[in-house]
């Protein structure tokens, strides 16, 4: 108990660090993921090919390697001196976007065929069909996989901790270096992650209930 109480500010900072990393990269992943999913079902072949390449490449690369790219290659391309927070969010967001894209795409597949056909016969364009008819209905079936993706993102943000960001992994690291019992710290850090995981899944369950419709 002392480990927690004596280092409460450290745990608080770590917790908030994890939350802010997760939230920022979740937003980036959602925006990018939906956009790339749109690319993957679009009528323009080059965009479809780009979407496929994006997903295949990012899904089969270890996240740690993406972090190396973000921290060592990216600064050379744009400009050096980007904060490690931004780089971490970029790596996490890009990695997660490929999974979001696949979830959205399989969500699009669950919308009944007639919906898109009806939209088309009303003369709607591809963008209109997708935006006003298909995506809103896909949202419901996307929520469940999206919840898993966001939980995984929460846990993956620990890797950012190894790259110069302060979050719960660093709490573990700093306190172990200070000589506290590793297993006791582990229990508290694990508890913090359990809380986060339950928060995320609770949030999604709430959303699911809100969006539920009688079929």
């Amino acid at each position, binding site marked *: 108990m002392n480990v927690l109480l004596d280092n409460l500010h450290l745990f608080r900072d770590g917790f908030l660090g994890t939350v802010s990393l997760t939230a920022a990269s979740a937003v980036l992943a959602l925006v990018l993921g939906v956009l790339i999913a749109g690319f993957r079902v679009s009528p323009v072949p080059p*965009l479809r090919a780009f979407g496929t390449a994006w997903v295949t490449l990012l899904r089969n690369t270890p996240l*740690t*390697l993406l972090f190396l790219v973000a921290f060592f290659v990216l600064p050379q391309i744009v400009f050096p001196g980007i904060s490690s927070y931004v780089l971490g969010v970029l790596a996490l967001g890009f990695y997660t976007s490929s*999974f979001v894209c696949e979830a959205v795409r399989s969500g699009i597949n669950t919308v009944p065929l007639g919906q898109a056909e009806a939209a*088309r016969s009303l003369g709607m364009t591809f963008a209109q069909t997708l935006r006003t008819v298909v995506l809103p209905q896909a949202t419901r079936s996307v929520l469940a996989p999206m*919840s898993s993706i966001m939980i995984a993102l929460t846990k993956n943000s620990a890797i950012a901790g190894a790259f110069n960001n302060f979050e719960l992994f660093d709490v573990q690291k700093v306190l172990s270096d200070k000589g506290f019992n590793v297993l006791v710290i582990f229990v508290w850090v694990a508890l913090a992650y*359990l809380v986060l*995981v339950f928060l995320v899944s609770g949030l999604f369950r709430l959303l699911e209930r809100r969006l539920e419709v009688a079929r």
Partner: protein
Amino acid sequence: MSATVLFDAPGPKARLRNRVCGVAGTLVLLALVGFAVYRLAAKGQFDGAMWDIFNYAGVRNSIVQGLLSTLQAFAMAGVLSLVLAVLLAVARLSDHRAVSLAATGVIELFRAVPLLITIYVLWVAAFTSQPLWAVVFGLTLYNGAVQAEVLRAGILAVPKGQSEAAYALGMSKPQVMATVLIPQAVRAMLPTIVSQLVVTLKDTSLGFVITYEELLYAGRQMANTILVGGENPYVPVVLVFGAIYVAMCLALSALAHWIERRGRRAKTGIAVADAESATPDPGAVGGRAG
């Protein structure tokens, strides 16, 4: 719904528009890639000398050594995690409440905690001088918990008549589990199990953080220590090591898809699961399945 349902067969106008969109999109992409290549080339990352490092025996050796270490950790963790998964899945389905509660606790705990933290704690607490075992046991605990849930789902999907028939024949509980339920569950869940093995393979790269000398660590060392014309060869190293990882993962994913297709071909037994796991790790449902 296939993608083609979302838009009409293009007429002359739409075809022109699509072509314009396609060309514009391609140009933007090419411009971005071109900009990246230009900037990197300006730093000398594409010079012949920079890529010449892969001609040295030492560099090649360390790539092979890294690859072998990665595969070693992957093989050990893969086997051990499957063993642990069977134990945990059977324990969670046990009729004894204490056993099943304990198994549930272990599964939920290790699925919710980031693998990196598990590995780090194992490293500091027990395996400071043998990072290999920290990586292997960390991967085993995490993936064992995840695979246990996969197996449990498979066992629960076996029709009830199967176990009822087995009990009616006078089989004992272990016999029913070992000879009737688990074989069918494994067969049905094999694609998902192999997909999770892909995750295991990718996660061996976390050993990098605790200085286990696997593939990514070898790459990092190489990029940090070799200097060509005053620059570190980050780009060649990232491209080469990225290609190795992607190739390994794609090969394993292809295996999962092949197994899935084979399973679909057979009309007997329970339905074969999807190899496509749309989540960064399929076990990430922590807290959802209570």
